[in-house]
């Protein structure tokens, strides 16, 4: 191999590798939004909620747990916290996944799964990922205008007292 070609090749390659690395680093930095207000640990527990929340609600145990800070839960007193927080990025089979939570006036209002690498929605694979969903207060079924309900199967005996029977009666 000619020396001149080898030297030129190595130099050009190094430059390209550096450029590529830089491009990637820029892209990662661009998606990390600095938090406004104090970082409230980011643990996705609803801070203040009205009374009838089922007691079993806890932080979503998803594969991408949002923890921008050290994960300490603050009490509901900090109403001033607002902002968008990024969780750590987890590597999945389809690429890196990151969760973003939106906090408004101390309440977590949205949890989104960010897909850093795919903007095109190329296939069902990435776009149909089952991402963590924030548990909010469940809706009282009586007050919803629904025509049916899906849950565990009930026996004929169980039907009488079931939600479905109430819905059916309401429709008749």
């Amino acid at each position, binding site marked *: 191999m000619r020396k001149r070609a080898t030297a030129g090749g190595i130099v050009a390659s190094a430059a390209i590798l550096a450029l590529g690395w830089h491009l990637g680093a820029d892209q990662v930095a661009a998606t990390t939004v600095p938090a406004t207000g104090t970082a409230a640990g980011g643990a996705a527990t609803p801070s203040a909620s009205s009374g009838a929340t089922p007691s079993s609600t806890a932080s979503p145990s998803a594969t991408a747990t949002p923890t921008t800070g050290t994960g300490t839960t603050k009490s509901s007193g900090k109403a001033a916290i607002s902002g968008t927080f990024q969780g750590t990025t987890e590597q999945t089979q389809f690429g890196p996944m990151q969760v973003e939570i939106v906090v408004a006036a101390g309440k977590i209002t949205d949890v989104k799964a960010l897909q850093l690498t795919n903007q095109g929605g190329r296939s069902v694979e990435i776009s149909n990922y089952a991402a963590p969903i924030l548990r909010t207060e469940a809706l009282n079924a009586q007050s919803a205008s629904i025509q049916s309900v*899906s849950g*565990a199967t009930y026996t004929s005996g169980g039907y009488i007292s079931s939600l479905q029977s109430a819905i059916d009666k309401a*429709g008749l």
Partner: protein
Amino acid sequence: MTVHVFDTMGTVASLHTAEPLSHVDLAAVEAIFVRYDRTYSLYDAASDLSRVASGDVRLSETSSEIRDTYALALDWRQKTDGLFTPHRPDDVVDLSGVVKALAIDEAGTLLSGSTDDWLLTVGGDILGSRGVDSVDWSVGVVDPDDRGRLIGIAGLGSARRALATSGIAERGEHIWSRNGRSHYVQATVAADDIVTADVLATAIIAGTPDDLDRISSQWDVDVLTVDRDGAMRGTPGAAEWTRRCAAAATERASTPSV
């Protein structure tokens, strides 16, 4: 809107239609379920499948319909990597995992011949159809911790037609996953057909979070799961259900009670 309720398959079926159906049509729908029950119910010692289970008849000697159903169940077993299987631990062939859905599917085909707007619910499995000018049916997804409350509201009829929920409290039986206790306590699947929705809901309960990822990526379905800690996961379509629920809750909260 009319509602017709009837007993079948050990549970109760609810049929909502925009226009009333003729007695003939209703009788035909009920007859479909009767036929499936008589053939496949393991709670009826005289059913064909019970006779196979007791050894009186060999599976190969049963009707082609039963063998086709068995083949379908095996096909799903292969597709779900064994998470869904018609084979019980005691080696009895149990097709109840697909039979209810197949009956609903057949009834749906019959109903579509008579009317465009119908919603058939059989023990939590739901199949619906909406005419071109109508609004989707609204179907609630119960909260596994409080059966009187909902965690999501799904629309059925146009984009998705079928919804099925599987849970570990199903009829008091426990679905044991391959890896020990189930990770998920409830899984709701919306699909374009009820068999897919039902089978995948069962498969997800029997599987791990990795299985959920694989299933949601391999099939065009919406999935909403609740795990033992109460945490929820959902595909983008299912996230919409929870948002609808939250919106309704907020609306309800802001409306002064009458």
